[in-house]
Structure formats: C-alpha cells, structure tokens
C-alpha cells in the first residue's frame, strides 16, 4: 500500500470515528470534538516544528497556550474606561520602569568592565529599579482592581475584532519563547526542558494572580466572538425559515451553524499553517534543520549556526501554540486561568505528536484529531471499565466506591501508557517521517 493511500485511510478512520459520535451521540458533540481537534492539531503542528524538525524538547506548551488566551482577552474585550483613568497610566509606567531597569541592568552588565564595581552597579540598578517599580505599580494596581471588582476590576482589552487576537497571541508566545530560548538554548538539551517547565508554571501563576491584567481566578467571561450568537440567529426570521427548510428546529440549527462556522475558520488557519509547515519542511531551511537535529556537530562544522537556528524554530513553534491558544479562548468565550493543567496542555500535545509521527506534519495533525478524540472518550470508557470490573463486588462496598471514584484519574495513566508504548514499539508514529 502506498503512503498516500495509507494516510488517506488513516484520516478517513478518524473522520469516521468523529462522524460515528455524531450519529450515536449528537452532532453537537461531534462538532465540539472536531473544533477542539482542529485546535489540537494546530498545537501539535507547532510542537512538531520544535521536536520533529529540530529535536527541541519543550515542556512549557501550556504556558504558550495560556499566553495566547491572554491575547484574546487583551485584544477582544472592551476597555474598562474607569479603570484606565483610575490607574491605567500608572500600571503602564510601572511596567515601563520594570522593563527599563532590566534593560539597563543587562546593558551595564555587558558594557562595563568585569569586576566588583560592575557587579555592585548592576545590583544597585536592579534593586533600586525594583523598588521604584513597586512604588509606581502597586498603588495603580490597587486603584484598577478597586473599580467594580465583581464585574471588571481589570484594565480590559482594546475592543478590537477578536480574530486579530490570534496573530497577537502568536506574538506574545513568541516573545516569551525568545527569552527562554535565549537563555536555555545552546546548553544541554535538558536545560531547555526545565526552563520551559518553569516558564509555563510562572505564566499560569501570573494569569491567576495579576487581577488587573486577566481578572485572575475570577475569570474573564464573554470574550466576543467572530461568529454570530445563537440567540440572534434564532430571532432572525430568514434563518429560522432556512432551518425549517432542512427540517430542523431553530435551536439545534443555530448551535450547529455556529459550530460549523468556527470549524471553517479553524480549518482555514490549520490549512494555512500546514501549508507553510510543509513548505518549510521541504525547503533548504527544513533540510538544514533536520541535518542539525541528526548531527549537530557535523552541521556546525558545515558552518551552520546551530544555536541561532534552534532559537528560530523554537520561537516559531511556540508562536503557533500561542495562536492555537488564542483560538481556543475564542471558542470557549472565556479565559479561566485555573483550568490550565500541564497534563491537558503540555503532555497531551506531546502524545499527539509522538503518536501521530514526529517529523511529519500530516502525522502531527492526525495525532491531534485522534488523541483528542480518545481524550474525550477515555473517561466514559474508564468509568465503564471500572463498572465492569467492580460488578462482582457488593454494592456499597468501600473498594467499589473508591475504584469508581478513581476512574477519573484513568486519563493520566492511559495517556502515560500510550506514550511509553508508542515510544517503545513504534517510535516513528502512525505517519512516519519520510
């Protein structure tokens, strides 16, 4: 069987599984799986760029995804004018002072002559700058957060169309990736893993605690949509008439219509990114990346700047994760920093890439759909399994209750097991690299 046929068959199988959900459960569920599958596929594409092309191990995908989500809020939400006049200028000034302090510290550290004088100067600049920053920043933040805290209490966004947030999310993630890459790349590969693990946790901590920015654990709800609202469609006589033409009631028709519009938007983004990734893979640049991955020493001897290329691909891959994160927040319509879990947003994406086939863009996309489908279905399957296993036990026994309650943790086990088994027995994945 040739590759093209096999790949088509694999995609067809995943498509059929989703369609089967549509027939047996509901088309709304199937479209929900489809939409998240599209977003997962984009994230997997980004990680594949880093791991498949360049062999970089990024354990901080969650952080980049969350930054994308922040972008959706910062771009899409209406600005809170009251909060801006209360402390907006102070917050911006505080941030500027903070950034200037760090920049000055780095500049002096690089420019002055090595020795005690330099170290002391840099230390004084950093500490002085920190206190100045806190003095300007803290009162403004308090003022911003005091503005109607139950509803706003944050600066809000720019009130621009939310689609613009998608590239902005990519930019934010790229910025964070640049800082991490600049420090940790060029050292041992493990250091990048540890540094990305750290930045992800810190980004989540910032989103949870900086109420002026993201409302913290109070969540931002009602992020505007790029597609119409169901309720407007239901009130639109033309739409109701068309739905009736298909023999559907307007409520179901409107929910399906909205989800299909999202699916089309996401599919467009996925196709563009996939096309770009394929072009990159087959270009001289892609071949160079793979040469670096396979033998860094030889590539360096050929005059390739390994660290710079790694930084480049690391930033690009993270940016794609940021775009996907902004899309996800748009789809959810809310930013909930408490829900970002490393299992769901870092580890799962890794399983997608490795199962799908690292180094192959189509493989990553396939893995995205397949693993997301399994992820949604594993919990009911685990529950069912537990019920079968415990069916022999008496009702009300402590062990039975414990086992059924624990079924929720089956996901961790299953996903870990899937990753280990694939890495061991089929390390090239479903659609291997050519």
């Amino acid at each position: 069987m040739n590759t093209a046929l096999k790949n088509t068959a694999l995609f067809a199988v995943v498509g059929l599984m989703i369609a089967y959900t549509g027939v047996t459960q509901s088309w709304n569920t199937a479209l929900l799986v489809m939409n998240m599958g599209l977003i997962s596929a984009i994230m997997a594409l980004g990680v594949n760029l880093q791991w498949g092309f360049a062999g970089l191990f990024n354990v901080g995908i969650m952080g980049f995804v969350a930054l994308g989500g922040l972008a959706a809020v910062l771009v899409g939400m209406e600005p809170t004018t009251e909060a801006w006049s209360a402390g907006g200028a102070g917050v911006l000034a505080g941030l500027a002072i903070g950034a200037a302090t760090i920049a000055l510290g780095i500049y002096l550290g690089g420019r002055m002559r090595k020795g005690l004088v330099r170290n002391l100067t840099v230390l004084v600049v950093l500490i002085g700058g920190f206190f100045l920053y806190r003095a300007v920043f803290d009162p403004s933040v308090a003022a911003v957060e005091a503005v109607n805290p139950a509803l706003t209490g944050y600066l809000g966004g720019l009130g621009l169309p939310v689609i613009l947030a998608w590239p902005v999310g990519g930019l934010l993630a790229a910025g964070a990736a640049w800082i991490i890459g600049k420090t940790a790349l060029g050292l041992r590969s493990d250091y990048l893993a540890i540094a990305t693990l750290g930045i992800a946790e810190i980004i989540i901590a910032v989103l949870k605690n900086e109420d002026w920015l993201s409302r913290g654990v109070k969540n931002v709800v009602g992020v505007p949509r790029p597609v119409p609202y169901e309720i407007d469609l239901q009130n639109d006589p033309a739409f109701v008439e068309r739905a009736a033409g298909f023999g559907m009631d307007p409520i179901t028709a409107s929910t399906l219509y909205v989800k299909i519009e999202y699916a089309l938007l996401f599919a467009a983004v996925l196709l563009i990114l996939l096309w770009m990734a394929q072009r990159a893979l087959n270009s001289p640049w892609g071949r160079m990346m793979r040469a670096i991955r396979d033998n860094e020493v030889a590539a360096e001897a050929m005059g390739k700047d390994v660290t710079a290329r790694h930084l480049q691909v690391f930033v690009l891959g993270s940016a794609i994760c940021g775009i996907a994160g902004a899309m996800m927040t748009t789809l959810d319509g809310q930013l909930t920093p408490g829900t970002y879990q490393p299992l769901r947003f870092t580890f799962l994406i890794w399983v997608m890439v490795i199962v799908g086939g690292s180094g192959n863009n189509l493989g990553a996309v396939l893995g995205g759909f397949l693993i997301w489908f399994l992820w949604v279905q594993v919990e009911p399957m685990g529950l069912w399994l537990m019920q079968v296993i415990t069916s022999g036990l008496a009702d009300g026994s402590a062990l039975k209750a414990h086992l059924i309650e624990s079924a929720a943790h089956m996901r961790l086990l299953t996903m870990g097991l899937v990753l280990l088994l694939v890495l061991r027995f089929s390390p090239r994945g479903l659609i291997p690299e050519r």
Partner: protein
Amino acid sequence: MDLLNAIVALLNFVVVPAMAYGSQLALGALGVTLIYGILRFSNFAHGDTMAFGAMVTVLVTWLFQSWGVSLGPLPTALLALPFGILGCMGLVLATDRMVYKFYRAQKAKPVILVIVSLGVTFILNGLVRFIIGPDDQNFADGERFIISARTFKEMTGLEEGLAVKTTQGITVVTAVVVVALLFWFLNRTRTGKSMRAYSDNEDLALLSGINPERVVMITWLIVAGLATIAGVLYGLDKSFKPFTYFQLLLPIFASAIVGGLGNPLGAIAGGFVIAFSEVGVTYAWKKVAGYVLPESLAPDGLIQLLSTDYKLAVSFVILLIVLLIKPTGLFQGKSI
C-alpha cells in the same frame, strides 16, 4: 532598636522554615543529581517518585495508627518510613527494568530518556491519585512542637516567640544523617567508589571491570531511599498532596542546577540557596525592620518583595541567572 527581638523574629520566620525546606530540597536534588551523574538524564519523574514513596509511608502509617503502634512524641511516620523506602525501591526497579533499560541498551539520546521519564511521571501521578486520591492527607502525629512560641517567650521574656516544629527538627536531623551516610558510602565504600568512577568516565570504569547494571541498580536504590525520605519529610512538614510533588520539580531541578548537575555537594548547597531565597523574598520583613530601624523610620508597608503566589518564580529566576552566567553551577557540575 531591639536587636534581640529582631534576631528571634528572623530565626522564627525565615531561618527555621528555610532550613527545613532547604533540607527537603537538598534531599530531592541529591536524587536528581545522582540519576543525572550515573544515568545521564534529567529525571522528570523524581517528584512523583517522591510522592509514591510518601504515599506508601502514609498508608503504612495509617495501618500502624489503627493498630495503636506509635513512637510517643515522634511521628509514627518514622516507623513506617522503611516500608515506604522498600515500596519505592520496588517501584523504581520495576520502572527501570520495564522502561529505562531498553533505552540504555540502545544508547538513546538523553532527550529521549527525558521524554520517557515524563511518561513515567504521568503514570506514577495517575497511580498515586488512583490509590490515595488527589486530596490533602494528614498523617502527622506525636508532639507538635519541640519548643512552642509561648514557652520560648516565658523562658526568655522576649516579645517575639521562636517556635520549632517537631517536623522541622526531624527534617534537619534526618537530612544531616542521610547526607553523612551518603557521602560515607560514596567516598569510603568500594561500591560507592565504583559509582563515582562510572559517573566520571564510563568507558574507563567499564574497562576496570565495573558492572554497569549493578551501578545503575544501586543508584536507583539510593535514589528511591532519598526520594522517599524527602517526600515523607515534606509531607510531614506541610501536608501530603500528590500534585504539590509535581510542582516541587522546579525548585528541585533549580537546586541541582544551581549547585552543578551531577555534583552531590552542589545539590545540597543549591537546595539551601533556593530555600533561603524563596523564603527571604516572599517573607514580609515589616516585623524585623520594625525592631531594627528607629521608630521614625519604621515602614508602613509589609516590605514583602514578592507575594507567596510567586515563590516558584524565585527558583526560576535563580535558575535563569545561573544558566546565563555559569551553566555548570556554583560547584563544578558535569558538563554544560
């Protein structure tokens, strides 16, 4: 100005907690650094290995408590600790046999081993949650304080109290004993020397007839012991919750890297550097400053540099600075 009270406040709120936390981090970082030195990869599953060992100890402690066995003023968990270590040793040997051995034989790149260890992390995490549940578990018993704030105040007549929890005392004492034993083992025994030789130069060690599988096995056994002790001490001191052990990974790695990966002495120093910075940066210095400074200069704010929500950021920033300035760590680590 009241220097005595300032010192007591400083001891009470910064030095004592940081010593205990530093000992826990140092024990954790020793495990990471040993794996790195011998097996040459960063073991992401270390936090969850700690959680697993601690979980076995918690379960055995509960069993002892139900039998009415106790150590008097000391926590029963100390009695259960050997069983926890045994359980954890069984677990790591099983994972090594089933998972890591294959890649070692293949001479896989370290980054593959890191990914594999991430897979193990999630399996262990799932296993622990499956057995004991994701919630906080309390298993500390015995006397709560070696010296409580009130007795200290009555004894000395100072305004500030100095409280030392039993768990903090036990943590530091255990850490000292364990570290002493470890260094004696590494420097004085034949097996320990063969481990150091293997870590320094694998090929030469093989040539001189050292059995690599034996070295690896003994490393895993030691690491299981260290991880369980660190996990139990942390659980006694704070509380046992599976997810916190995953979050401990970052400070533990930061400790190991700050000290120099692969260098046991560095791991200990790194643990204390991280612990003291974390506690020092997130502590509100108002009280201490109030005693030291004259009244007119007494601060209004809390003088807390960072809120405790960002304590992870402290280890991260230290990690970044070390990577930027001296990637081999304070003590000469293995390699960059």
